[in-house]
């Protein structure tokens, strides 16, 4: 495989990207196609809690929410994964054992990435040992913005190795990269260094995920696929709170990468409150009525 020269910039036109996104937003999703997409979106949620306040009790609650999103309707699908800090992985893995729900852990000095390389590698290994099968790493934005692309490439490759069998999601923290061309470049670096998924944000920086940023990343994934035949996943994270936005993301994935990516194996939403809005809309589609938020358990 030929690795591109990351000093070269793939041009991205800001206005063009944003106009394309505006077109996705005009798609009108109705009836059966809406119900299908709502259920699909729910199955793509990485239910997330990443707070200093995350006690075992809170994580336990989140795990049960992941398994039983809406007890009143057993036909509702489960979410894809839960996403926690490394010291809560063991508990989550115990609760979710046998459920099919993945356990994702942030690592590598999340959210800043400012730890030593050694400590960051250790953190990855610890999380995997504790039972995480997905690792959400952060790249060194300082190195990227300084133009040290090889450093970023190498750290990703190193963490990928430390992951062993666990899948690696690479968080670019696009809110700090500022330009779409930077987003594209960081996506390419992550993909060629071995990312299984590329992810927009930690959720700790504003702006977090946006549709235009995600579109630029989807184009990087598509180019890689067209060159190599290998599929890399995409995870927008942070700021996606309502079902309507989630459906627009799915429209964008469908019309950019096709049906092949409309699966939790290749597309995830990093979110917490999104799940309940999806549930409300699913129940609305089924019954024709909106219910109060009090009828939906919080995570």
């Amino acid at each position, binding site marked *: 495989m*030929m690795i591109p020269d990351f000093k070269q910039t*793939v*041009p*991205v*036109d800001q*206005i*063009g*990207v944003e*106009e*394309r996104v505006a077109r996705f937003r*005009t*798609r*009108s*999703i*109705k*009836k*059966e*196609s*809406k119900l*299908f*997409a709502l259920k*699909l979106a729910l199955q793509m949620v990485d239910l997330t809690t990443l707070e200093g306040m995350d006690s075992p009790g809170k994580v336990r609650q989140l795990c049960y929410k992941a398994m039983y999103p809406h007890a009143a309707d057993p036909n509702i699908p489960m979410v894809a994964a839960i996403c926690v800090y490394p010291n809560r992985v063991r508990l989550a893995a115990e609760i979710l054992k046998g459920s099919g729900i993945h356990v994702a852990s942030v690592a590598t000095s999340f959210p800043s990435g400012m730890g030593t390389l050694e400590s960051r590698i250790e953190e990855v290994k610890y999380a995997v040992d504790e039972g995480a099968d997905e690792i959400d790493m952060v790249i060194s934005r300082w190195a990227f913005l300084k133009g040290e692309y090889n450093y970023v490439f190498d750290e990703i490759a190193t963490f990928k190795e430390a992951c062993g069998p666990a899948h690696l999601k690479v968080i670019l923290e696009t809110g700090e990269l500022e330009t779409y061309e930077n987003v594209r470049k960081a996506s390419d670096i992550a993909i060629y260094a071995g990312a299984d998924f590329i992810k927009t944000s930690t959720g700790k920086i504003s702006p977090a995920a946006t549709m235009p940023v995600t579109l630029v990343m989807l*184009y990087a994934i*598509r*180019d890689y*696929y*067209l*060159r*190599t*035949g290998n599929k890399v996943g995409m995870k927008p994270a942070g700021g996606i709170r309502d079902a309507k936005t989630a459906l627009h993301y*799915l429209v964008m994935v*469908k*019309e950019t*990468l*096709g*049906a*092949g990516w*409309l699966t939790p194996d290749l597309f995830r939403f990093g979110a917490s409150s999104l799940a309940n809005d999806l549930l409300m809309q699913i129940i609305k589609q089924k019954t024709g009525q909106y219910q109060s938020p009090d009828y939906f358990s919080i995570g």
Partner: protein
Amino acid sequence: MSEKELTTHQNLHFDELWAYDPAPESPDYVSIEPQYQLFIDGTFQKPESGRYIDTVNPSNEKVLAQVAEAGKKDVDKAVTAARKAYEGVWSKLPAKERGKYLFRIARLLQERAREFAIVESMDSGKPIRESRDIDIPQVIAHFFYHAGWADKLEYAFPGVRPKPHGVAGQIIPWNFPLLMAAWKIAPALAAGNTVVIKPAETTPLTALKLAELIRDAGLPPGVVNIITGAGQTGVDIVNHPGIDKLAFTGSTEVGKIIQKAVAGTDKKYTLELGGKAANIIFDDAPVEQAVEGIVNGIFFNQGHVCCAGSRLLVQEGVAEELVYKLKLRMETLIVGDPLDKNTDIGAINSKVQLDRILGFLTEGVEGDQKIYQTKCNLPEKGYWCQPTLVENVSQSHRIVQEEVFGPVLTIQTFRTPDEAVNLANNSPYGLSGGIWTDKGSKIFNVGKRIRAGVVWANTFNKFDPTSPFGGYKESGMGREGGIHGLLPYLELS
């Protein structure tokens, strides 16, 4: 992605797993009369000719309504009414009051935007997304913009006294029915002229709805007269001695006839005619956005756009990747019911136009030209054409030289900027052009050498009432929009 690298042609499947359910805008929201009369002197009048023509919904071939066909006498009545209104009322009105009427029309259009969008899509076949998001908002913007000019003409042309010509005769095409009416009526009224306007025979309904709206707005009778009819009605307007100024948008063929007809008279005229625009993609262009620009350039409004980017010129180094990605993008275009909110490409405006396009795709194809069409399913009834690429063409082919006016894009390659400019300019037309590059200096360098009225950089088919629009060479004369567009409706003394 170099040519060598793009060897793994993977398949992306856009239609599987998840298809969008129909999301149609309801035609029940609007009411269309079975028969429409001529709008002359502030009232709807039966035609002296006694003749009516059908207007058809091109997406299902059903007759929507009958509209009157104005004969010579009807044209004369309209021109007489316009003359009377000009001399009796409109030219005596303070400019500020003219502006108020235009503001009122704009606001009424805003209130009834949805209704106008639906009728436009039903009568013309264009997708509701475009009529709702582009046509009608642009119509409103044109009225607002020109309303502002009505009492400021002396500032637009300082040192000279701008005066209206009198009665403007206007003939508009079927591709942007209401928008072209706005492009014509708004500057004419702002400048102080009165109007006799004829919409195209296949798309008269929104103009007739506009007539109702103008009547409801209380515009003095005769200031705007909207008369329907076919080619002969247009001829009668052109030849009527009471017309002071002609404005025509349509084919170059008819434009030439008009020029001959007005030769030797003192009628002022502007013509906005055909085009065969080159959309030039350099190898440093943002590829994905260029693909969007190409799609918007040629498939917008089924390609029924005089400034459509119908000739793709792509630098050889990126040609393979670009065309591959263009084809991927085309597979996601939804062709079908114009009233469905998800439709990207609607119906071809008429049987006549469809036959013309298909003629190009059969007789126009010579030698080793290759036609690529998307795999979309077309409805059984109605007039439809898949988005089409024609590859392996060269400058000498008919399909490269002539205006198809449909969703058909020809693809040629070039090696250097000079070659691109030469290919772009090697056309009897000169209405618009597009340049795609990441390099700002190249935009200016190449842009100023393209002989076209509008050149877009890293975008295509963008319109704004403040921006002048018009052609070089056989694409016409005069400009519409902006200060430049007011000028043809004024005499400066």
